[in-house]
């Protein structure tokens, strides 16, 4: 029993040590390619970023696959286990913490929404290894490109604790990408799968409609 425990602790230590070294490695890599990222994990949202490799950690087997995907404009290659969710890949490997977990993986709350190939999808209900070739946008990417929906959400106080906000932002952006001139009903429909425990629901339609207006003005100029 105690032997088992020791072994577990040892394994964990090894894992931790590996994680640290990987992070350091990536930080260095980030500096070398001169990307402007900050934080413990170097992650570039720039379209011109080199393909980052995260394949060193998992051995080739029946249960792992190498995928290439575009995340917030940057191209990445990962070796993923088949039983990883996209949310797991984005948070634990790519270091993007905006896809939240609220309902525990039932697909019932919308907090983990990301935009995949133009569709708002639940990253907790998406198998990572099926995302080969996918183009993915998270709330981080939307904030980075200074999309007007961010300012509109701040102006309209469309959040309180903020936990569900990335899910709303991605859902709203996906709507505006496809429908530049939405009605209030369209907005309510599109955000119908996002839950907010602070009950800020009333604030979302005016915020999204305002962002739509800003986008239209930008276009007509």
């Amino acid at each position: 029993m105690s032997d088992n425990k020791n072994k577990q602790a040892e394994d964990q230590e090894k894992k931790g040590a590996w994680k640290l070294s990987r992070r350091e490695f990536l930080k260095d890599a980030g500096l070398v390619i001169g990307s402007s990222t900050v934080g413990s994990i170097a992650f570039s949202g720039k379209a011109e970023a080199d393909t980052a490799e995260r394949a060193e950690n998992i051995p080739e087997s029946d249960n792992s696959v190498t995928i290439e995907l575009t995340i917030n404009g940057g191209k990445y290659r990962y070796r993923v286990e088949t039983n990883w969710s996209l949310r797991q890949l984005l948070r634990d490997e790519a270091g993007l913490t905006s896809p939240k977990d609220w309902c525990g993986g039932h697909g019932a709350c919308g907090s983990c929404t990301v935009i995949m190939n133009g569709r708002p999808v639940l990253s907790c209900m998406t198998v990572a290894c099926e995302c080969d070739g996918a183009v993915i946008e998270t709330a981080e990417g939307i904030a980075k490109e200074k999309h007007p929906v961010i300012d509109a959400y701040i102006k309209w106080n469309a959040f309180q604790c903020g936990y569900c906000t990335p899910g709303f932002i991605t859902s709203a952006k996906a709507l505006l990408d496809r429908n530049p001139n939405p009605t209030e009903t369209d907005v309510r429909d599109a955000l119908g799968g996002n839950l907010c425990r602070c009950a800020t629901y009333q604030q979302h339609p005016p915020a999204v409609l305002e962002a739509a207006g800003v986008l239209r003005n930008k276009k007509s100029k």
Partner: protein
Amino acid sequence: MKTWKKFRHVNPATIDEAVSVLESENASVIAGGTDILGAMRFEILPEYPEVLVNLKSIKGLEYIKEEAGMLKIGALTRLEDIAKNNSIREGYTALAEAAHRTASPHIREMGTIGGNICQLTRCWYFRNPDNRFNCIRKGGEKCYAMAGDNRYHSIFGAVKGCIAVNPGDTAPALTALNAKIKTSRRVIEADKFWDMVKPGSTILAPGEIVKEIQVPALSRGMKSSFIKFAVRSSIDFPVVNCAALIGKGQARICLNAVHNMPYRVIKAEEFIKGKAVNEKNADAAGAAAIEKARVLPGEKNKWKIQIARTMVKRAILGCA
């Protein structure tokens, strides 16, 4: 969040390839994934698939087309694309509305029509994590809902001892529209597609894959409609829903979430056939629809009977 157990992931190029994996291994298909991945994550079934066969890697299963007086929808067509398609909205209103009212917008963007008609029941004893209730539908001996909390369960009795309901929204619409389901082996009428087959809800054989949904075009003078009652209208499964197809002296009306499978209300169909679609007739048809309805022990599902009556009435009025 619970992660899935390890599984092998296969990307077949053809239906035949997928079928051969399904027939030779402990495998399950995955399309949109919104049902199977939940069932796997919470380990609701006694068996766990060792292999997932990804149907999305098979080309040419995602389409909507009208051919020879028939609407054809590829099994992998996303529900949102069906809900937004103009020719379905105009010509097959019940189906477009049913697809639009299914689950939440995100699930509709992921979930496919083929997966939607094959989904497992939502009975909360059946769905309890870690297979805590080994109920009749899983091969056990007892229905825990019968003596337990059955407020969302059948109002038209049990099938083989199970009182869980079919939770589909497109299922009643396809039944009312007299659709056919084309699989890798045969073509099945919607009327016969659903059944209580442990633990599933369709008569599909092991290794059989849904390829296409075929809906005959409505002739002139016929109209269809779909209506749903759910606790939270933008996200929930139905408490009761109803689809109707009425006109030219014919009527097909189908309730769902009231029985083990979509439930055609023949009495209401016979009553409304050839009659004017108005408030009085629709109300009487609604009353005829629930003649055989009965409450379960504990009477917790009594409220559903009144809702079913009203859904039938409103679905009929939707065809005015």
